[in-house]
């Protein structure tokens, strides 16, 4: 289900002009000082008078029917004020909604936050308790008696697709297949995307390579566990402070799940301790609200790291097949892919988004992409930075590397020869507008990194990535204070910490005032119209569209005030360099009036100067990137050391370049972690064996090198400043780039993720006789 641009969505054409503030470094960052002194307030840092501590009882089984739940003994524990189970939540009918880049179904959301008929994974909530202390709450959890009928389970995606696999949902019949099957299946949906004639395309090819790839689920790994505090007042108002990427979406979900009026719910997004797509979904919030309603006390709930791993996120584990054909002279004639993606306990993986990205970097006339969304006994997957794209890029970019070698071309030239450009027809629908992909490849080719000498057991890999820039509902309000300083209320969550600065810079640019005179903060859900969550790299791209509109609205009002002072028509006033000026000498000889001058006098001349925007921002301005990595493979241990890494990406227009570098570096390192170390490991019983940072090993400082970054700027034609989303592309190429580098270091291709020492060693051992024979 690809998002379709709405007929009433807003875009503002690119305006070519010299910028004074956008593209520089801001004088300050409004969030930074409080973060370095420890005073920034994250969700777990909030406390309310009289609050209780809420804890969740979770399933120890991968798949079981819940026969009965007896909470009597738990309720009798001194200090326990409320216990909730499935009986405390209304059942929901099938109803789909967008939540970040993935789709949700309320029938499933209510079952995911609190199991009803069955538990579907190790860690699935079955009850929750609120008590005066954590120790009382934990004691109560132990006394809840749950009677389970344990059922056969299935963890692996390929196993789950077999016709004799244990079925999670007896009412799930594969959609997208005609006729709809009569037998239930773990394959929730089949999707297909086609362009040209795939068979004819392969017939034109001189070399066709087909390979299979497998990736394990990985977790977003944000350092802040989910935390929420809810207060259901005696007057029926609901207040929630939580760790979220989209408080308006959370309000809508809480309202739906608990059948409350939205107007009675206020959700405040606390400072966010990392999300990466993993904080697009409600988990604790509805439980905390109902515990608060039942106990008539505020309830605070904070997940442990074990709970985060077992019950939130992760991304899909995948099985993919990629087949690509080229002519002798290196022209790709056909591309075919099958994407089998785990969605976890409930349907709705990133496979529709991943399917969009498969070949969308290359100009290929004949394409067939088939995707399957597959339920299995793992936590329901969540978005993770370019959800689904890194796994299929692993397949496509690995096969391209083989093909380049096969036709005797270097990897960059081969990609350049086939690169998508403005006007290229994508396989999923639209033709591409002006994009910067070729520029990233050319910049990579010319980079000094390419000239670095490689030693024994060292190799260089190249891979590319594409992700779109989501638009969607975005609101902003701008209030000019009587002293001419400006407050901006934004409705998107600043997930990176640089978003507030970026928006302040855009507003300062528009108004012509210094950035430090603009303060941007996130408003709660009563402050603005609906905002979609910060997902799809839209935070700054869509957020700035709303702040530009709101700024121009305020400028219009400031010009009205000037016109009243000068007793001329508003159309005779223009805004330049932070001042209202007469549009021409014919208007009169008036001294320019600054925003501060106007703001001081506005009250008596029509009212405060303010600006608003409530938009549905059009989707557009996709981002492309090219990565180069050098590795050294230790043949004794299978360990892969990253020697140097270079990332080139089109940002459209870099608002705050130093921060964008940080996003690039952070995304690349997450990708390196995903490639080399990270994986979910399940026991035979279907329980997660590594739910902690000791055994689920994310990269540490000593694991990674410096990441060279280069920003390319090809303006997004649908944005006044040319801004593109930049957050997600950096995580897409690393698995493929590293796998390609390992091949060039060792002669061995790895198609089974992660590229961890045991896997690398096994592959080297397996290949040793063959390589020796050559």
């Amino acid at each position, binding site marked *: 289900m690809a998002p379709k641009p709405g007929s009433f969505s807003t875009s503002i054409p690119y305006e070519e002009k010299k910028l004074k503030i956008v593209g520089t470094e801001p004088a300050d*960052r409004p*969030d*930074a*000082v409080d*973060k*370095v*002194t*420890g*005073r*920034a*307030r*994250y969700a*777990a*840092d909030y*406390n309310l008078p009289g609050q209780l501590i809420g804890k969740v009882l979770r399933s120890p089984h991968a798949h079981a029917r819940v026969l009965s739940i007896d909470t009597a003994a738990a309720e009798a524990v001194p200090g326990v004020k409320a216990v909730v189970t499935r009986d405390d939540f209304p059942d929901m009918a099938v109803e789909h909604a967008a939540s970040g880049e993935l789709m949700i179904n309320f029938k499933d959301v209510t079952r995911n936050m609190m199991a009803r008929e069955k538990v579907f994974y190790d860690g699935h909530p079955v009850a929750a308790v609120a008590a005066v*202390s954590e*120790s009382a709450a934990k004691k109560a959890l132990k006394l809840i008696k749950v009677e389970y009928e344990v059922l056969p389970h299935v963890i692996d995606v390929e196993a789950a697709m077999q016709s004799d696999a244990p079925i999670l949902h007896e009412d799930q019949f594969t959609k997208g297949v005609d006729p709809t099957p009569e037998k239930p299946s773990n394959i929730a949906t089949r999707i297909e995307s086609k362009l040209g004639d795939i068979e004819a395309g392969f017939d034109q090819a001189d070399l066709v390579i087909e390979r299979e790839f497998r990736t394990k689920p990985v977790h*977003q*790994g*944000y*350092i*802040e*566990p989910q935390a929420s505090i809810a207060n259901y007042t005696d007057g029926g108002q609901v207040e929630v402070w939580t760790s979220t990427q989209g408080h308006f979406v959370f309000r809508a979900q809480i309202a739906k799940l608990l059948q409350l009026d939205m107007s009675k719910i206020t959700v405040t997004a606390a*400072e*966010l*301790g*990392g*999300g*990466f797509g993993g904080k697009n979904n409600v988990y604790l919030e509805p439980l905390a609200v109902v515990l608060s309603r039942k106990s008539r006390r505020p309830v605070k709930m*904070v997940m*442990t*790291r074990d709970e985060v791993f077992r019950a939130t996120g992760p991304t899909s584990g995948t099985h993919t097949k990629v087949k690509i054909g080229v002519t002798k002279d290196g022209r790709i004639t056909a591309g075919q892919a099958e994407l089998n993606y785990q969605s976890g306990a409930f349907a709705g993986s990133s496979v529709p988004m991943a399917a969009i990205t498969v070949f969308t970097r290359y100009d290929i006339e004949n394409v067939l992409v088939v995707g399957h969304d597959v339920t299995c006994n793992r936590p329901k997957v969540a978005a993770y930075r370019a959800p689904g794209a890194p796994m299929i890029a692993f397949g496509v970019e690995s096969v391209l590397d083989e093909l380049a070698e096969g036709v005797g071309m270097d990897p960059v030239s081969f990609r350049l020869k086939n690169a998508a450009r403005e006007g290229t027809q994508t396989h999923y629908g639209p033709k591409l507008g002006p994009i910067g992909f070729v520029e990233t490849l050319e910049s990579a080719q010319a980079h000094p990194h390419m000239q670095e000498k490689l030693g024994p057991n060292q190799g260089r890999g190249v891979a590319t990535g594409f992700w779109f820039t989501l638009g969607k509902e975005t609101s902003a309000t701008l209030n000019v204070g009587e002293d001419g300083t400006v407050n901006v209320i934004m409705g998107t969550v600043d*997930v*990176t*910490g*640089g978003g507030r600065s970026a928006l302040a810079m855009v507003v300062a640019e528009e108004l012509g005032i210094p950035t430090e005179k603009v303060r941007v903060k996130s408003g709660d859900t009563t402050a603005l119209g609906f905002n979609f969550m910060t997902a799809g790299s839209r935070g700054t791209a869509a957020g700035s569209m709303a702040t530009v509109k709101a700024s121009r609205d305020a400028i219009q009002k400031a010009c009205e005030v000037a016109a009243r002072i000068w007793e001329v028509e508003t159309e005779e006033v223009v805004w330049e360099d932070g001042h209202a000026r007469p549009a021409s000498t014919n208007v009169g000889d008036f001294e320019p009036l600054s925003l501060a001058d106007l703001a001081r006098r506005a009250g008596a001349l029509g009212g405060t100067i303010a600006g608003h925007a409530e938009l549905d921002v059009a989707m557009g301005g996709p981002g492309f990137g090219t990565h180069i990595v050098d590795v050294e493979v230790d043949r004794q241990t299978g360990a892969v050391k990253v020697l140097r890494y270079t990332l080139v990406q089109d940002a459209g227009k870099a608002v705050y370049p*130093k*921060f964008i*570098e*940080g*996003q690039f*570096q*952070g*995304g*690349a*390192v*997450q990708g390196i972690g995903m490639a080399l170390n990270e994986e979910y490991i399940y026991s035979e019983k279907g329980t997660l064996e590594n739910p*902690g*940072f*000791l055994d689920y090993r*994310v*990269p*540490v*400082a*000593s*694991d*990674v090198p*410096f*990441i060279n970054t280069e920003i390319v700027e090809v303006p997004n034609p649908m944005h006044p400043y040319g801004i593109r989303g930049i957050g997600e592309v950096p995580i897409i190429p690393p698995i493929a780039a590293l796998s390609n580098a390992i091949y060039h270091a060792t002669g061995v291709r790895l198609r089974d993720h992660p590229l961890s020492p045991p896997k690398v060693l096994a592959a080297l051992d397996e290949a040793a006789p063959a390589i020796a024979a050559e």
Partner: protein
Amino acid sequence: MKKVHISTTINGDEVDFLCEPTQTLLDVLRDELHMTGTKEGCGTGDCGACSVTLDGTLVCSCLVLGAEVGDKSIETIEGMAQGEELHPLQQKFIDHVALQCGICTPGLLVASKKLLERNPDPSEEEIRYWLAGNLCRCTGYQKIVEAVADAAQEMRSA
């Protein structure tokens, strides 16, 4: 559960608190003393977000019991700035954009401060290995390493 009474020193202030025998120093700081600058990322000593010093030793406060910190000297992120003046590390973290979401930042600052006390002129590799116990998921560590090196240089020339 019966609580124990502890007297200790935190950031130079004499502090008394009551805690359950099972509560960690991290729980005490955050829940009993409302010093929420020290963060919990894992509760198992793997992420370093709860780093503090205990009698000068860098520890994960989630691995120390509140009941065992009587008559010690504890330093937390709240004691790092001197009034309005940020510690050079705090300023360099801001200047280098060494923080994004910021949840790991207090722990990284406490750990970095300890590093520079022991080694005022650390190499890039020494910084990376010293900070290997502090996870950051946003920055890819580069700007953190640069900020620490820059702060070290400034502190040496001060």
